[in-house]
């Protein structure tokens, strides 16, 4: 069955997105190949254009680049980095990251909405990275976001779906794809996000810090696939509270 992830009118069969920037460039090609990812993020600030160890030289051409605006502290800087990415031939996809808090690296939702609005107007396929908040997500869709990327837990924390209840709200209420990003520490957590109905998962640190990077990337892909299949198959009924009473509460009804 064909079940593509659709972003900006383009179809992708992989629902696992790989972050870069935390592992060796010489492992990139093998990691991408073995994990069968189709979208790879990259921090434009790491792109050493024309110089040594330029990440752009290590990503196979058929891969869709998702440059991010890391380093931007406000909407204006994010917009400028996005334009720079497009000028450099990275395509129209852009992940908005606006952070001006160096301890937890929490995204600024307000500035992210502003940047999203501007870049959507300029024809970018905008994927904003935010703290999961239903009201913010609705606003992002309103101003033209192609997807919403809520964080599962603080970036790099490998803690998993700490913000599960809030991500569930987005999955239930938001019509654009929900891509769970940041804080996913293990394939089982990625699988769980997909079972809940997330459209895709992005991981970086969990893959980059594994002993065998390409093997871990592949494990993530498999977990994401399994989670997606479970979601489509419809999870069996799980009783949320206690067992149902054997004497029905509605037995008194007549007629």
């Amino acid at each position: 069955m064909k079940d593509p992830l659709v972003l900006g009118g383009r179809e992708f069969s992989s629902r696992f997105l790989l972050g870069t920037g935390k592992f060796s460039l010489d492992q990139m090609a093998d990691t991408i190949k073995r994990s069968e990812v189709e979208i790879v993020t990259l921090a434009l600030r790491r792109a050493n254009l024309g110089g040594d160890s330029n990440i752009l030289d290590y990503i196979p051409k058929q891969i869709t680049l998702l440059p991010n605006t890391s380093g931007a502290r406000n909407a204006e800087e994010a917009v400028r980095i996005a334009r720079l990415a497009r000028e450099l031939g990275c395509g129209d996809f852009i992940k908005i990251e606006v952070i001006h808090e160096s301890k937890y690296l929490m995204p600024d939702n307000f500035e992210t909405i502003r940047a999203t609005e501007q870049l959507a107007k300029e024809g970018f396929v905008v994927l904003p990275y935010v703290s999961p908040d239903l009201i913010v997500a609705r606003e992002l869709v309103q101003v033209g976001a192609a997807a919403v990327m809520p964080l599962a837990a603080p970036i790099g924390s490998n803690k998993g779906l700490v913000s599960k209840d809030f991500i569930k709200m987005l999955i239930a209420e938001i019509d654009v794809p929900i891509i769970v990003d940041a804080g996913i520490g293990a394939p089982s957590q990625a699988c769980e996000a997909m079972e809940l109905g997330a459209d895709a998962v992005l991981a970086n640190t969990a893959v980059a810090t594994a002993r065998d990077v390409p093997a871990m990337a592949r494990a993530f892909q498999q977990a994401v696939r399994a989670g997606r299949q479970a979601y489509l198959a419809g999870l069996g009924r799980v009783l949320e509270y206690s067992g149902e009473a054997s004497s029905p509460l509605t037995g008194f009804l007549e007629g």
Partner: protein
Amino acid sequence: MQRITKADFDHMQRIDEELMHRVLGELEGLDFASFTSRDVQAALQAKELSPVDFAALLSPAAGAYLEPMAQKAKRLTQAQFGNAVCLYTPLYIANYCVNECVYCGFNCKNHIHRGKLSMDEIRREYEAIAKTGLREILILTGESRSQSSLSYIGEAVSLAKEYFSTIGIEIYPLNVDEYAFLQQQGADFVSVYQETYDTHLYDQVHLSGPKCDFSYRFHAQERALLGGMRGVGVGALLGLGDFRRDAFAAGLHAKFLQQKYPHAEISFSVPRMRPYINRTDHGPNDVHEPQLLQVMLAYRCLLPFAGLNISTRERAGFRDNVVGLVATKISAGVKTGVGGHEEQEKGDAQFEISDPRSVREIREMLQSRGLQEVFTDYIRL
């Protein structure tokens, strides 16, 4: 003897000193001998270190816990930085100095070769450095507003933009508007080291010159951030005084700075005075490699997100093993005289380096350790 001239003093801008009083207040009554292994174990378990936890990790009791501290530090470093390690090189463009600091090679009373580079010479140095692949540079001068004026430094910074994506400065402390000027010229990162946070000792080792003003120096990072700089470096010259107290103060200085200016990118440097090799009586201030590493690991546990630089003051074998573990930035192809990358050196060095390896050699070392060299991690907008 007049220690600071009136002109120097009048020029110094004063800002709110609350942060300095907090740091110095934390030092009061601090007794490192009082910590036990139990305190160290509790600190190792803590997710967010309190000042007391941090002190425990710096205490003599923690000397026996370097391995578990290293294990924790490595996890924190990896989570935050992965295996990326940034490369940079310092360039001394002048070594004139009006300060009389008893521990420093640039001391104005020392008879050394003084010099400064012309803009043409600076350009040739930049070209030579850029050719090695580096995209980050740290521009240094001694403290002399007449020989290394703000406009001279500004011109050097502006020129650096043609060759480098990241420009840091390690120069004398400035006022907010002066930092703003250099930020507009293209510098985004400022390092100022307090040397010692012991105000009494500070007075004893800074005999004359504007550096005598402890408070003006302490607030340099804040003024830099108020002037629009992106990041600031903090550090103490370990071994000048009680290194545990100085590291403690430097750590809290950094922590409080980030709390007050949440956007600030914070980094540590860990320069140390080497103990005399032939001395048999070990002084309490001696900072041997285990003590140096202990300080670095404690910084990492306190601020998992902070950058940590390892300079060529340390030997290759030490540097190779601390990158990826706790250090996030390493210098390469270093000369500490004035110029010397392309031109003949025009002035003597501030200190002798222990690791003369080239950029290529440092790259190879990083790769052989499974680390990823990063030349640029910044977009100037």
